[in-house]
């Protein structure tokens, strides 16, 4: 094991002692262990805390078609018992030192992380490594967690926004694994067995699929040792085969109305989106900011909230994933103003396609996106997450120094081009959840 880390990699190590760490200064130490695990380390010595963040390259996109919810169930079971610790022992150990463990599945990846004081960093590694390498998947815990997820699904149905998004995803991602909620459906969750969980784990949780990011009051040397101690025994194994199938595209307008006894309509309107590595990502970010992601400064907010008083909040989103994700606009408005709000939303979608944005809008969007970049990195946890995702999407660590330039390059023509290319006010999915008799949806 003494060749655990190639000596040549130490060349990457850059030591900074600036008064404050600017985004451009973020250069993590990166190495790939012999077992294939990628390790990123960023030293931050301001507070005695350490964030140990693992990103596993698997998520609900890998769920078998009839077993949606499997990746999430596996993730949920990681901290519910290992071959040497019970669920309760894990909880006791992390709680006793005031730390926290968090496991979360998403569509393309799963994260398991420990947040801990510097003095307890060994315990953080111990627990995280144990969870990742030796989950027990006891039948009893499996049944308990599955029942709990079923309960959460029921409770989620009390959230009209959630109900609307669930329906929207099924329309937009029809035929693709992205269509189901992360935690699956009652039907698919019911079909999953302990054997499925163990098989998914065995196939997907291999060191080559893991990006381990450590940020905080530790040294690169220390992390190197900790990684070797706690993950050195994790055997290399071939990574799972990937079926790279893109979601289809909507070929016509599709409307779904869902009755619920509510005072507001929850509205989601949108269609397919882009993937994270699309070269237009930055132009789309600028366009989307102007349209509806720019908080109080966006066109949607100005029109729907400030001028018409139709909604408390309204936002547009581009969910850029490994495969093309979705674009959607979401809002809530009282039942009686549902049509007025939808008409307003479609008008703004057309507006940003039909005419170039103003110089002022472009300049303001760019200065916000570039200028607010450091705010996305201003805590240990945020830094670890962003670092791991930069590695996952293969953006390159120049991302931290180049991001403002990539935004700055976007022109007015780019904005209109991507609006025409990625927004479609004709072929969209529309979901309305609410009192249908009162909302009388006409779209």
């Amino acid at each position, binding site marked *: 094991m003494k060749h655990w880390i190639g000596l040549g990699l130490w060349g990457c190590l850059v030591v900074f002692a600036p008064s*404050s*760490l600017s985004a451009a200064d973020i250069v993590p130490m990166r190495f790939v262990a012999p077992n294939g695990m990628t390790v990123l380390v960023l030293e931050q010595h301001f507070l005695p805390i350490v964030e140990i963040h693992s990103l596993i390259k698997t998520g609900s996109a890998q769920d078998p078609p009839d077993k949606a919810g499997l990746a999430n169930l596996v993730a949920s079971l990681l901290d519910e018992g290992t071959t040497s610790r019970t669920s309760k022992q894990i909880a006791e150990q992390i709680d*006793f030192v*005031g730390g926290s463990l968090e496991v979360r599945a998403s569509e393309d990846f799963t994260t398991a992380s420990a947040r801990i004081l510097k003095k307890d960093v060994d315990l953080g590694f111990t627990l995280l490594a144990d969870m990742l390498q030796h989950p027990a998947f006891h039948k009893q815990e499996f049944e308990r967690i599955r029942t709990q997820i079923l309960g959460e699904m029921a409770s989620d149905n009390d959230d009209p926004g959630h109900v609307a998004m669930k329906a929207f995803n099924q329309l937009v991602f029809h035929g693709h694994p992205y269509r189901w909620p992360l935690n699956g459906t009652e039907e698919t969750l019911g079909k999953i067995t302990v054997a499925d969980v163990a098989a998914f784990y065995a196939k997907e949780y291999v060191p080559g699929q893991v990006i381990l990011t450590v940020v905080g009051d530790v040294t690169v040397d220390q992390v190197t040792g900790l990684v070797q101690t706690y993950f050195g025994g994790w055997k290399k194994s071939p990574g799972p085969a990937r079926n790279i199938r893109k979601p289809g595209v909507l070929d016509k307008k599709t409307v779904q109305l869902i009755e619920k006894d509510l005072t507001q309509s929850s509205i989601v309107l949108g269609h397919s989106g882009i993937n994270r590595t699309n070269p237009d990502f930055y132009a789309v970010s600028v366009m989307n900011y102007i349209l509806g992601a720019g908080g109080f400064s966006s066109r949607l907010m100005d029109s729907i909230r400030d001028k018409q008083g139709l*909604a*408390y909040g309204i936002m547009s989103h581009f969910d850029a994933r490994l495969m093309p994700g979705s674009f959607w606009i979401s809002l809530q408005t009282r039942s009686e103003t549902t049509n007025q709000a939808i008409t307003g939303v479609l008008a703004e979608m057309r507006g940003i396609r039909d005419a170039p944005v103003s110089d002022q809008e472009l300049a303001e969007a760019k*200065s916000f996106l570039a200028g607010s970049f450091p705010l996305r*990195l201003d805590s240990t946890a945020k830094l670890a997450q962003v670092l791991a995702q930069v590695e996952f999407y293969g953006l390159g660590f120049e991302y931290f120094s180049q991001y403002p330039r990539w935004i700055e390059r976007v022109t007015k023509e780019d904005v209109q081009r991507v609006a025409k290319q990625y927004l479609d006010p004709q072929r969209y999915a529309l979901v309305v959840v609410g009192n*249908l008799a009162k909302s*009388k949806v006409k779209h």
Partner: protein
Amino acid sequence: MIVQLSQHLTTWLLLVVVAFVAVPPAQASDPLEFLLSNGMKVLIVEVPKAPVATVQVWYKVGSRNEVMGRAGLSHMLEHMMFKGTNKYPNGSFSRLIRKNGGMDNAFTSQDFTAYFENLAADRVGLALELEADRMQGLVLDQNELKTEREVVKEERRLRTEDDPQGALVEALFAQAYMSHPYHWPVIGWFGDLDAMTLEDLQRHYDTYYSPNNATLLVVGDVKAESLLPTIKQLFEPIPRGPEPKPVLTMEGEQRGERRFLLKREAQVPFVMMGFRVPNFASEDSYALDILESILSRGKSSRLYQSLVYDQKLAIAVGAEYSLMQTDPGLFYFYSLVSPGQKVEQAEDALNREIRRLQNEPPTDQELQRAKNQVEAMHVFEQDSNFRHAMLLGQSESIGAGWKRVDQFLERIAAVTAKDVQRVARQYLIDDARTVGTLIPVPPKQPEPAPAAAQPGKS
């Protein structure tokens, strides 16, 4: 799943994803404190970690300063504070901050109203200038009020009318407090929102938005020495305002349990119980804070282990207590009941855990764990400038003062197992309890929809 009840007690200009877990105050890196000649307190914490900072202005006014018939006035005024001044007309505030790469927002609670900008450290001057400008120069306009009233009503629908848990929290406070303004929700009632006039808002603004009723915080990569002259130049010309009258209404003693049902379309039942408890002004608040930890913090906590893990009665369960309130608040418990389980059983299980604490003190291990959690949280809290500033701003606004935050860890360390048992016996008693239960009713049969829009795909 975590049910964030305290979110329901704070209302934002725009919904943001900031979880208000019950945050115990903890010793923070000491701020530098200044008092301007007009009575405004300034706290600056120099954090040279990343080139960012937060600017926050906290006013000592919240729903507790309102009167019957005008519930929600503080929150409505918070919304109107973005409608412009003569110098920076409507819309320019947020636009200027955003243009400079910053984010701004505001929130109102029972006890305070706070405005903030998170931005690059070299831009704090802009945030300060804008905040100083609207501390005195707000222009209240009838048409803007007309539209914004509708926005706030949409907010109320979102948070309360169409959210079963939000509705139960609102009802719980309305039942637990009869005469104290904690009786009404921060966002107000529909009728009060409709009745609010421009004159009401102007009076509220004139009464409470003055430097002597405010605390300014700057936390981040700044130097107090170079920032202070700017702060003085911007804020000192603002004249001292009237000293707001104290809120005199006190809540009488509760003699006997109060219990209510809330029936509405929902998937799962939800039960809450609130006990009236003292705030930071009482020594007992530290033991109550530890009590909350033992019951509810982490998966090894008593409530999780008992109701979720062992008995499988609840999907989510918790206890929340904030000693950081101007007037004594509620120690409350909640349980989101698992499908197929009885709400009565979930309530019984909560009561059993309360009795267990009353009958035997917590173990040394539990006590130490709770103390470790409080200490660790104190360190984690400082990882975010925003949260760090919030902690200080809240302590100042409720009248505790930031120095009390500093003493907090010492007081917590001194809490004994017997103290925990004593406060459980003293405060978590049936006669001082208000219990609310959400009873799901089946969905209404939809009225026939017009032919043009039948449910289903088209």
